[in-house]
């Protein structure tokens, strides 16, 4: 009896198989094009002012518009909601002329007053639409501190007043997701309404959320033209290898962040298109705590830089999918200088350590237990660094911590050597050099986890912050990078390429270096 029941069950399961064989069927309901995109986890919020993570940015970028946007596939800014702009001669204000006739998804007009609200609500802690009860919004507090006021001059002109001249990369800041323009009518409904149903002017409008799955639909009246995709479904697949399998079998149309092994597979699969930004913006580095001996001695730091075998690191810890770097500013960023890297020289490293009387010295290397965008296998990375430094004469002990504890330990300076990396907020050299190596950034919780407090370096990068002449800025950054290379407060290890993959039938998908994937110009063919 039980046997028969078991047989019946097996048969019934097998019997339903033909029903699911036609997977394309649920893709074209009512003649609509659906595009399914898989990501690794859910975003944290749908309020652009409060968001800090890339997962949130993915949804925000497609629902909201900004005054200016990154060129599709590039890092230069181009008009979006604003069609033109002008900086006042005294650099104390800037005006933006808005595109005419743009409507929010709820039908209300996107005029200058509406745009101003999205900035004022972030700046003014007492604003009725500032939802964080006296708490600054993370990006506003960090990056928009120089904005004194945003106001509407007339219906189509927005004016920013500055407390101090804005940085040269102000337009890049305005292209970030945190500068999204939100419908004031929706904001007026309160925080829960904004979080449950984001209303912007973007190419896609909110269609709903079920558990982890978010559905957006094309905005037929988008100022840039109606997107070719009718419905954009964003699902969660935690395991990147599994996500790639789903792409190969056609169950999803696009995925982000491929495992190194799958990058090679995607290249060889005619059904799949690999998208790659070669000069990725995420960098990984080995930080040395300059406040602690022996790393307060420049000879020891140079010895460490000489001992690390970066090409081998790329092979062992990155399966070949990364580029060794000699400076923190990656090749895709304006201001990058190609400094020829030190080639590994164990004997020279050992001589330097002997001079500094640091041979045989025992130091601890802290690393994170969880993979990061710039370190898919931190354990392998740390193990090879230990071996490299041992060859030169430093006794390295490894200490692994879960990510949050690791980050906090480094930010508070509780380390000698530490593994860390960076994905920039703004595609500008400032976001690497000032944020990661300036004196100002060496205050706990520090982003300058090397706690390197070089006055000449800090002077150079601070000056570059207020220099608008592009050539002059490049010269300043070139000097700063050479200084950082010579003094070696940290060892830049690799830059990670950014990867994504789509079905070969998908056309017009481009991977942006900075921005989250945008689907406004993507279509699905036969």
């Amino acid at each position, binding site marked *: 009896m039980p046997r028969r029941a078991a047989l019946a069950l097996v048969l019934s399961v097998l*019997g339903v198989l033909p029903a699911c064989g036609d997977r394309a069927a649920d893709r074209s309901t009512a003649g609509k094009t659906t595009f399914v995109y898989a990501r690794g986890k859910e975003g944290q919020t749908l309020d652009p002012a409060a968001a800090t993570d890339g997962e949130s940015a993915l949804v925000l970028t497609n629902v909201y518009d900004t005054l200016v946007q990154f060129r599709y596939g590039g890092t230069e800014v181009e008009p979006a909601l604003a069609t033109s702009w002008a900086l006042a001669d005294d650099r104390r204000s800037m005006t933006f002329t808005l595109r005419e006739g743009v409507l929010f998804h709820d039908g209300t007009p996107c005029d200058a007053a509406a745009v101003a609200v999205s900035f004022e609500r972030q700046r003014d802690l007492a604003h009725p639409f500032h939802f964080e009860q006296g708490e600054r919004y993370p990006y506003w507090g960090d990056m928009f501190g120089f904005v004194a006021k945003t106001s509407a001059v007339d219906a189509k002109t927005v004016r920013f007043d500055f407390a101090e001249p804005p940085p040269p990369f102000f337009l890049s800041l305005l292209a970030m997701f945190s500068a999204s323009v939100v419908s004031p009518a929706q904001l007026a409904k309160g925080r829960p309404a904004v979080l449950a149903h984001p209303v912007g002017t973007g190419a896609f409008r909110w269609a709903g959320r079920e558990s982890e799955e978010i559905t957006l639909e094309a905005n037929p009246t988008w100022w840039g033209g109606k997107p070719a995709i009718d419905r954009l479904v964003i699902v969660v697949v935690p395991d990147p290898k599994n996500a790639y399998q789903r792409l190969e079998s056609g169950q999803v149309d696009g995925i982000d962040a491929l495992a190194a092994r799958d990058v090679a597979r995607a290249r060889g699969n005619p059904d799949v298109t690999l998208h790659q930004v070669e000069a990725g913006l995420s960098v990984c580095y080995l930080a040395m705590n300059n406040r602690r001996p022996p790393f307060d001695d420049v000879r020891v730091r140079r010895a460490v830089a000489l001992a690390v075998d970066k090409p081998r690191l790329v092979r062992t810890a990155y399966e070949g999918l990364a580029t060794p770097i000699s400076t923190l500013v990656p090749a895709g960023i304006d201001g990058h200088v190609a400094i020829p890297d030190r080639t590994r020289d164990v004997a020279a490293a050992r001589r330097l350590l002997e001079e500094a009387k640091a041979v045989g010295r025992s130091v601890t290397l802290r690393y994170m237990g969880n993979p990061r965008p710039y370190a898919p296998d931190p354990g392998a990375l740390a193990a090879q660094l230990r071996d490299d430094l041992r060859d030169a004469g430093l006794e390295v002990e490894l200490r692994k911590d879960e990510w*949050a504890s690791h980050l906090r330990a480094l930010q508070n300076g509780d380390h000698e050597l530490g593994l860390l990396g960076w994905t920039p907020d703004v595609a500008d050299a400032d976001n690497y050099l000032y944020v990661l190596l300036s004196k100002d950034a060496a205050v706990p919780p520090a982003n300058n986890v090397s706690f390197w407090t070089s006055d000449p370096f800090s002077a150079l990068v601070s000056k570059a912050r207020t220099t608008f002449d592009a050539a002059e800025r490049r010269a300043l950054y070139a000097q700063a990078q050479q200084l950082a290379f010579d003094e070696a407060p940290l060892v830049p290890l690799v830059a990670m390429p950014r990867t994504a993959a789509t079905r070969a039938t998908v056309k017009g998908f481009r991977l942006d270096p900075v921005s989250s994937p945008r689907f406004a110009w993507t279509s699905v063919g036969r």
Partner: protein
Amino acid sequence: MLAFVARRLLVAVPLLLVVSFVCFALTSLLPDPSVARLGQHATKANIEAFRRSKGLDDPFLARYGRFLAGAATLEFGEDIVRDDGRTIGAGIRERFPATFELALVAMVVAVVVGLAAGSLGAAFPRRVADAFAQVVAVVGSSVPVFWLGFMASLLFAVHLRWLPHPDWSLRTVAPGAAYATRFFLLESVARGDLAAVGRALSHLALPGLVLSTIPLAVVTRMTRSSMLEELGRDYVRTARAKGVRELGVVSRHAMKNALMPIVTVTGLQTGALLGGAVLTESVFAWPGLGRYVAEGVRSGNGPLVVAGVFTFAATFVVVNLVVDVVYHAVDPRLRRAS
């Protein structure tokens, strides 16, 4: 019977209190949630403001009191890491159906196959059937689920393409339909929509079969040993002596008496599976409770983790209650006693 159920539920209240208290005390070991919430770039002022506004630095009893107040409404307050305007309770309610139906399928497979394999093994000990049942049990209990899951999806979803990669959503089960619940399988059955039932089962098949190997091993072995014991008893010899065929002896006479310990382990295993199968859910991207709570652990989301454990404990209490009711149904002695 009603008094019995009421008494058991009443006893569960202090139990849940103790569980939540212990779990709450342990959340101080979780990573700092401000990293998950604010990212790597947060300033000291941001971190402090975050901790203040979420009350993370309040005294222990104040935080625990807040948790209990949230638990009383089954909402458990707002999520401190994920700022999407939904309460933790809403997140749990959204994911529980997926975990429930996955556990249901896994348990049905495990009980049906386990009873059959265990009985066969006991009826013909040390023969081919028995050896097979033993192998099933050993493999089921020793092969790690994440490996089995990966291999199964490679075989059935990638190479043979018999089954889809699980994609548990109304979009795949019943496109265009409006369901009242997220119990996609049960609601499809209730609506009599056979095509939707088929699609739901096809998405449940891979994770369900992989997950079933855990309880399958236990049920098979328990059935075999319990059945072997019964088959050696006098009433079985009597039954055989009066000419009942072996199949009848096993299924009609011995099975009833062997059932008690099987019901017990089935109940325990069901309770365990309803707590969310973290590994299976992660491998198959199943939007269930286990992954939800595991992600909470990773991001240091204390209130979410405690709420999750609270839910598991409550589920366990209910499952145990059901097991006791089933005891009454299968054992006439208990019925007479009460």
